[in-house]
Each structure stands twice: as structure tokens, then as C-alpha cells.
């Protein structure tokens, strides 16, 4: 994948070319992908273009980009601030439903409202511009994050994980029962909301350069690479910027040693809440991108616990805390999940004549779980680890090594310090993710079925 080869050495590149290196590189990659599908592939002969389209269809690229937004959001919470969140799907769901409320004609609303929307002016329902809805959903999710976080972020470690897990389920159940809440249809209940507006292309569409609406047609899908690519770019930009400032330092500090951080004047609850809110903001945007750009419909069955685990896997597998690692992790896993496993099955079938094409995707969570176990055994720090974590995983710190010769009191202090160290926390997060992946395998039938429905 072109994106992979570029992003593998972001650090060296940045040092050599200055701060503009990654934005330029990123734009080049996205433009390359766009032109690959827009002009290059159609002009090539079928034997060349067919395998590319089979292994990496445009729809899959869009899905990968959408998941990258999610992974980047969860990375702020898990990777930067070290808070294990097992209910991240809640924000994805709320973002999706926000799109449902503001970009569709859900359940016979009696009033119509249009705001910079590309759809016909006389269409019934609420139709608001995609970008505005992104912002609204982001803010709504950030507020939900604050509401969920305020009581729970006082908890530590495992307790926080359990409570977030609960909240993730609560939100899904809320939408499942939303057909009749105190007599009102809030979000369509089990069937959810369908025919959400596609993304409009505004002036580009008016000029005839791009299609007016980015539907799931071939032309629309190719243009979505640019739109979703832009969203991912914004998320990467925000992630990198925020990481370098006052808040990013405070997140790293609480990830490493909460107590010491609070003793240095870092207000723990406030800083954690901000991590939660920023992560939720990304999650909301991911939800809108998914609802409007990928599925054009939202229903409670799409927001199962498995999705939370999937995003967590992307973060852990890619390399917690490293923006590029997480992006690659998201690409890899969502590719495997949506198309890769199927293609691998097809290839194996060609030799064995079996039916792995259908069965392999059904065992996606088993395979992802195995992948994670292997990662934890051989490359605990993730595909592209954060520079710091790598140092931790590969070499004992000086005091650790020196403490071997120290007296027992100091040795004890060291073990204590080790318990608080990042490695332990990371391992715990990864460990629970692995456990969850195992349990998620049970639900894989349902979710992969739902995904196939979405793809068709």
C-alpha cells in the first residue's frame, strides 16, 4: 500500500524536510490514490487493473479512511492519556445518529429544514450540510464524553474500562429502544434511520468537476477518497498539534504517573475529561463519515461491542500513542475486515477448491484476535511504536538496571515504580483487548453479516 511505505519513516522525513514534510507527503498519498482510481486504473488493461480493484476496491479505501478517524480519536484517549475506553462505539453511534437526525427524513418529521444542503430544496425532512453536521456531531459527542466522563474518570484503570464498556452498551440499547421513548419516536428504534444524505461537493459539483453528490456509485466513491482523506488529515493534524502543547504533555504525564502528575499541579479530572472530549469529537466525526459516506443508514445493530474492540485493536496493533502507527493499524485491520480476508480466501480457494471466501470473513474476530496475540508475543509495542514506548520495551531504564545492585529498600522502590510504569499499563490494555477479541468472536457472525449488508 502506498500509504504504508510513505508513513513508515515519518520521523526521519520530518527531521530532513522540516515540518511541512508530513502534510505534503500525506496530500501526495491521498492524491495518488484518487488519481489511481480516477484516471490511471481505467486506462490500464484489464489484467493489470482487475487484481488491484479486487484487492483494494475504492469502497474499502473509504472504509479504511473512516476507521482511521475512529482510531485516531481513540488514540487520544488510550494512547495519549492512557485511559482504557471499551465503549468508544457510543460516540460513533451518536455521530451516526446525528447525521440521521440532521441529514435525512427520518420519521415523518412535520417540519423541513435545509441548510447548505446539496439535496433538492423541496425534499422533506432536515437536510444540513455534511461539514456542518460533522462539527455538530463532534460537539455533541464531546458533550456526551464529558457527561460520561465526569462521574467515571475519577475511577482508575480496570474500573474505568468496565464503566466505559457499560456506557457503550447503554447507548446502543438506548437507540434500540428509541422507537418509543415516552411515546416519542426519537431515533427510529430497531430499523434505525435510512437514506441519509450523501456528501455534497458544493462548488466543485456545480462546476461539473466532481459529481454533485458523493453516492455509493463508482464515481462518488472515488471522490470520497478526497473528502474522507481530508477528514483524516485534519484528525492527524489535530492529534499532532495537541500532542506537542501543554495538554499533550499533561496527558503523557498522567499516562506515566498519575500521582506524580497531580503533585506537579496537573488537574487530573479536568485533563482526563479533555482527553475524553477530544477523543469523542473525533468519534462523532467518524460516525457522520460512516453514516453519510459509507452506509447511508444507521441502525443499532451496527454499533455492537465488537466495533469498540475493533477500534481498540487498531490502536494497540498500530502502536499506541503514535499517530502514524495508529493510522496504519486502522488501514490494515479495516482492510482485513472488509475485503482482505475475503480476498485471501479467494486465493486459497483457487488452490484448494474450498469455500474459504465465505468462511474466512466470518471468522474475522478469531483471526484478528490471533493477530493480536502474535503481536503481543513478538512486537508488543505495535507496528509503528511511539519512539518513547520503543525505548521502554527494548531496554531497561538505567535506574532499573542499577537497582539490581542496590539494597533491598531501593529495589523495593523500583518494583513499586515499575508497577506504575507505562509498560504495565500498556500491557494491561493490550491484554484486555486480546481477551475482548476472543469474546467478540462469538458475535462475529452477526456483525460480519451486517457488514455484508452494508457493502451491498
Amino acid at each position, binding site marked *: 500500500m502506498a500509504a504504508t511505505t510513505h508513513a513508515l519513516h515519518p520521523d526521519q522525513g520530518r527531521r530532513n524536510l522540516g515540518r511541512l514534510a508530513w502534510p505534503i507527503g500525506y496530500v501526495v498519498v491521498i492524491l495518488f490514490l484518487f488519481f489511481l482510481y480516477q484516471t490511471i486504473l481505467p486506462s490500464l488493461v484489464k489484467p493489470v487493473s482487475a487484481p488491484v480493484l479486487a484487492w483494494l476496491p475504492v469502497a474499502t479505501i473509504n472504509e479504511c479512511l473512516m476507521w482511521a478517524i475512529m482510531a485516531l480519536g481513540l488514540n487520544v484517549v488510550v494512547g495519549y492519556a492512557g485511559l482504557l475506553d471499551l465503549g468508544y462505539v457510543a460516540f460513533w453511534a451518536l455521530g451516526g445518529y446525528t447525521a440521521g437526525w440532521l441529514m435525512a427524513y427520518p420519521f415523518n418529521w412535520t417540519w423541513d429544514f435545509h441548510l447548505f444542503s446539496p439535496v433538492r430544496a423541496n425534499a422533506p425532512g432536515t437536510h444540513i450540510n455534511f461539514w456542518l453536521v460533522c462539527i455538530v456531531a463532534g460537539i455533541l459527542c464531546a458533550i456526551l464524553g464529558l457527561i460520561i466522563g465526569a462521574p467515571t474518570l475519577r475511577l482508575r484503570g480496570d474500573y474505568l474500562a468496565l464503566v466505559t464498556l457499560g456506557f457503550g452498551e447503554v447507548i446502543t440499547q438506548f437507540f434500540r429502544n428509541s422507537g418509543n421513548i415516552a411515546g416519542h419516536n426519537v431515533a427510529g428504534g430497531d430499523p434505525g434511520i435510512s437514506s441519509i444524505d450523501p456528501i455534497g461537493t458544493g462548488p466543485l459539483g456545480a462546476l461539473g468537476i466532481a459529481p454533485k453528490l458523493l453516492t455509493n456509485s463508482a464515481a462518488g466513491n472515488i471522490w470520497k477518497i478526497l473528502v474522507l482523506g481530508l477528514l483524516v488529515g485534519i484528525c492527524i*493534524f*489535530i492529534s499532532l*498539534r*495537541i500532542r*506537542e*502543547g*501543554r*495538554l*499533550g*504533555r*499533561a496527558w*503523557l*504525564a498522567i499516562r*506515566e*504517573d498519575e*500521582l*506524580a*502528575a*497531580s*503533585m*506537579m*499541579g*496537573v*488537574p*487530573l479530572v479536568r485533563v482526563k475529561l*479533555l482527553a475524553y472530549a*477530544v477523543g469523542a469529537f473525533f468519534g462523532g466525526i467518524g460516525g457522520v463519515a460512516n453514516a453519510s459516506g459509507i452506509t447511508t443508514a444507521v441502525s443499532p445493530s451496527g454499533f455492537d461491542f465488537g466495533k469498540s474492540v475493533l477500534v481498540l485493536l487498531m490502536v494497540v496493533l498500530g502502536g499506541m500513542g503514535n499517530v502514524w502507527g495508529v493510522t496504519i493499524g486502522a488501514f490494515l485491520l479495516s482492510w482485513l475486515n472488509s475485503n482482505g480476508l475475503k480476498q485471501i480466501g479467494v486465493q486459497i480457494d483457487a488452490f484448494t477448491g474450498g469455500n474459504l471466501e465465505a468462511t474466512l470473513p466470518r471468522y474475522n474476530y478469531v483471526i484478528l484476535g490471533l493477530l493480536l496475540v502474535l503481536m503481543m508475543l513478538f512486537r508488543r509495542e505495535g507496528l509503528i511504536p511511539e519512539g*518513547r*514506548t520503543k*525505548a*521502554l520495551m527494548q531496554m531497561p*531504564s*538505567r*535506574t532499573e538496571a*542499577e537497582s539490581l545492585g*542496590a539494597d533491598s529498600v*531501593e529495589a523495593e*522502590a*523500583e518494583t*513499586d*515504580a515499575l508497577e*506504575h*510504569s*507505562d509498560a504495565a499499563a500498556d500491557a494491561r490494555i493490550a491484554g484486555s483487548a486480546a481477551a475482548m477479541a476472543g469474546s467478540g468472536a462469538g458475535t462475529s457472525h452477526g456483525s460480519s453479516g451486517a457488514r455484508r449488508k452494508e457493502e451491498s
Partner: protein
Amino acid sequence: MSESTPGVRESLADVTQLGGTPNSPGDPAGAAGYGRPDSAESGVDGPVRAVAQTGVDPVGANVLFADRITIRFGGLTAVDNVSFSIPPRSVVSLIGPNGAGKTTFFNVLTGLYEATEGSVYLDGKDITSVKPHKRASMGLARTFQNIRLFGLMTAEENVMVAMHSHLRAGVISTIVRTPGQRREEREARDTARELLDYVGIGKTVGELARNLSYGDQRRLEIARAMALKPKVLLLDEPTAGMNPQESANFNDFVYRVRDERGISVLLIEHDMSVIMKISERITVLDRGAMIAEGTPDDIRNNQQVIEAYLGKTGTREGKRLPKPGADQEGQAVTTDGLATKGTQA
């Protein structure tokens, strides 16, 4: 702790009789209100000093004042009715054998534990119910007995974390990188480097904290604490693991901090030789109660203290005491002092 009451009273008499350096009301350091303000009426045990009756308001006169602190964990009284004060621009110490309640008391000062009874004042303000991070930003900085740096952050970042409460940039201004945010970051970076230079590890700016040597880590902890612009610097066993040369340098450093920056320093130490040389005043805790308080000379000659370290509580701390014939003058004096008092007893 009531069983020790008579002993404490005796020891007090002992101290005042045997001289040491009793506080005269004119003595500015003494007038700063050591001891309890109204311990006579509260009927508590422990030392009651003449200075307590001089009428100086201990809350206003001290940078930090802990008023009759008691901490109970279930039925166990870890700290029993201890008052403690840190005058401006001073170097004071809290000592005591293992389990004396030093660290517990320290944690009440920093806000990690809430005192069962009593209150803490910082710069005249009651901070008894103020959260630790708020206390830190109000000027109460500490280091840790077992170093607790942010190992995977660079030395510079470690120091900058402590500036959190002094910086203003929010989420949006960090993302947009407004001119104000840039200036703030630049200034914070400069201050961090300056502080690293100040503690003598300016070369390590970009090193991960975990890769620094033990001594440098201790220095970095102090630099980090100083980034809070503290009024009081609480150092928990700062010389643990230092060699004699390093701890000698450390003494100079503590005085520099006090004189150049106007910061009061509170030390918790096992190591008597360091404490005796460096402190202007020493408070001794044993089994949660304050058993003595005064200048190093007072303490050196105090019967209670000697018993706490060598007698009653056994020789748990014996190995920490300087050995006879140590080549350093201060240590020799300490030993002498303790030895003579021991024989007198």
C-alpha cells in the same frame, strides 16, 4: 501516644536545662511560631515551648503552618497532634526512625491524605481541604522518596509538565498555534532549560528521564518541582543513594535555592549527618508524635531523640548513623554528641 507523655516533658526540661540554644523572643527564627499556638489549653502532650506564648500569629508568620495534625488509619494513629511550621527562607527538617510518621505527615502537607484533625496553612491561607494539584499550583512543590519522574518524557518535558498550572493555552489555541500560545511555549521552554542549568543538568535537555543517571534523576526531580514556582519545596529523602561528595554539593545547592530563589525547604531524611549540617531547625517524630524540636545542637543533645534512634526503638536506624572515626568533621561531631549523651543517660 499518651504513654510517652512524661518522657516528653522530661526531655523538654532536659533540653532547656542543658542549653542547646533556647529561643529568645527576639530571635526571628524562633519567633516564627514553632510549636502549637495554644497547646496549653488543648492539653496535648509534646513539647511546649516558651515561644508559643509570644503572641506571634503562626499562620501569618510562616510560609507553611500545620496546626495540630492528627491522622488515623482505622484504629491506628499514624500522626498524633503534630504542629509544624516553616518560616520564610528557611531550611527545616523532619526526621525520625522508620515508621515515625514522617512520610504520612508529609503527605498531609501535600494533600495526598486528609488530616483526621487539624489544618494546614500555606502563606496564610487555609489549604486543609484543597486538592493536591491545587496546592501544587499554589506553591507547594515536592519530590519523591523513590524517584517518580515521567520516564518516557525528556528532561525538558518533565519540567514543562510542572508548569501546567502556570500556562494558559487551551485546546483550540494549541491546535491553531496562536501567537500567544507560541510565545508561552517558547518561554516555558526557556524557563525549563534555565531550571535544568540551575540544578546542573543542562546538558540533558533532550534525554528521556529514564536514561539519566540516578543522581541526575534526583536533580531533575528538583528542577521539576521548582518549575511550580514554589514557596515551599518539600524534599523527601533527597540524598538517598548519593555519595558523600554529592550530598556535600547538595547542601550548597539547598542554600542556593533558599537564598537565590527565596524558597523555603523542608527535608525529610534518615541520614543524620546531612540533616545536622544543613538544617536551621529540626523536628523529630517518633511513633507519630513530636518528641523534639530545635536547632541541630538541641537535637543532638536531646535524650528523647537518642532513645528513639538508639535506645527504645532498637537499632533499626543504627546503620544509618555515622560511624565513629568518620573522616568528615560534621559526622564526627554528630557521633560525639550522641555518644556523650548516651553515656550520660
